[in-house]
């Protein structure tokens, strides 16, 4: 089986469904500060040969409770980040131009990693995990299960 990085841009641009509710993600992040989710992304319509699906991982981290600027989200395939959002006080884009703030880590097919930083608007006023999850998943085209079944035993495991 071959690594399918040639389809990465199509995967990033496509809607990706993770079978978990937004409320559940917020509950997990509020408690454990990080959350890793997986989905079998169907490759129908993206490639005509090879496997039917590819495993995608979504990693969300809200390590510091109040310092929103340390929070990150990333989408990984074959254990490599293919898309993501985070904040840096100083960073440089591909043209060596200096920037500050929230940005998207865009896929760079030449380097086969998401190292192209693209400034991102609409994140500066985020103050809660829920806002961060809503906005970042919208940008990254991640959809979730609209049904929240909740769990009172979440922290007993």
């Amino acid at each position, binding site marked *: 089986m071959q690594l399918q990085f040639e389809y990465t841009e199509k995967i990033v641009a496509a809607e990706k469904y993770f079978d978990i509710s937004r409320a559940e993600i917020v509950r997990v992040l509020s408690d454990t500060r990080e959350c*890793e989710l997986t989905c079998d992304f169907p490759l129908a319509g993206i490639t005509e040969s090879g496997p039917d699906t*590819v495993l995608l991982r979504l990693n969300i981290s809200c*390590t510091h409770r109040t*310092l929103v600027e340390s929070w990150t989200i990333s989408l990984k395939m074959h254990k490599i980040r293919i898309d993501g959002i985070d904040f840096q006080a100083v960073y440089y884009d591909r043209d060596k131009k200096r920037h500050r703030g929230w940005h998207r880590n865009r896929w760079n097919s030449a380097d086969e990693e998401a190292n192209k930083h693209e400034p991102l608007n609409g994140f500066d006023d985020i103050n809660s995990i829920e806002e961060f999850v809503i906005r970042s998943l919208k940008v990254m085209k991640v959809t979730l299960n609209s049904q929240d079944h909740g769990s009172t035993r979440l922290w007993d495991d």
Partner: protein
Amino acid sequence: MAALDCGTIKQGLLSYFQQEISIDTIRDQCAITLPITTLDQRLVTIYVEKRTDDFYLVHDGGKTVSELFSLGIHLTDNKAELFSRMAKSLGIGFGDRLFQTGCKVGGLQQAIITVAQCQVLAMTDVLQQKPTLEDESMTSRVRRTLDEWKPKYINKIEPNITVKGKHDKHRFDFVSYPKPKPPHSTVAIKILAPSHSSIWQADRYGFFVLDIEKTLYAKWKKLALVTKSESWSESALKLVSQLSDETISVESGEEEQIERILPKTMTQLSKAS
């Protein structure tokens, strides 16, 4: 050999730092970015919080652990212990997922440099990151195994079958429908990964099974396929097992066992009345 002018080098270095060090205010904290690059190609930023008149907290904002996690490197107990020892040997601490230290105003410069140093050292695991073809996804493996298994008495095997329970809709990953004669059972497969919490997943599965009770789907034989079974708690596994006609549990790295176990279990469930 020309004489080396160390004074000029020092002046040049000071001037470089003066130009490149960036200081910003973020949520009432001083964010100091140094011209030092981590192995994941970030400039190191250190946060300074004023706690009392002459006491400051200097930390990395949790960015180190956060960035490692976003690259798929988890903070295991061993790694936390290593970070703790690393921080301690440099005179600071690692706690609550932060490299941090407290100091008075006179100690700020040293504290800032040390927190920066820890941030750089902590990212060495990034060097071990390389593209790895993850094992064939479980859905893909099950689909292939079922296609190979399909005996003559099976009419069709369909993926992603949505069923309506009393309160909600649910989805089986695969359903095998038998031909009318001779009579066999319909077998429905649910693949259960531990997700972020195995008990959460088991509870969710429990709701699914109980919600389709007293519907026409209750007659279907339920096969739960539990992946990464080493990550499941005993109580979660027990719950899944009690609610299923059959359970197959596979540990990480043992996924190929599915190709051996699944056909036998499918035959057994299909023939069960």
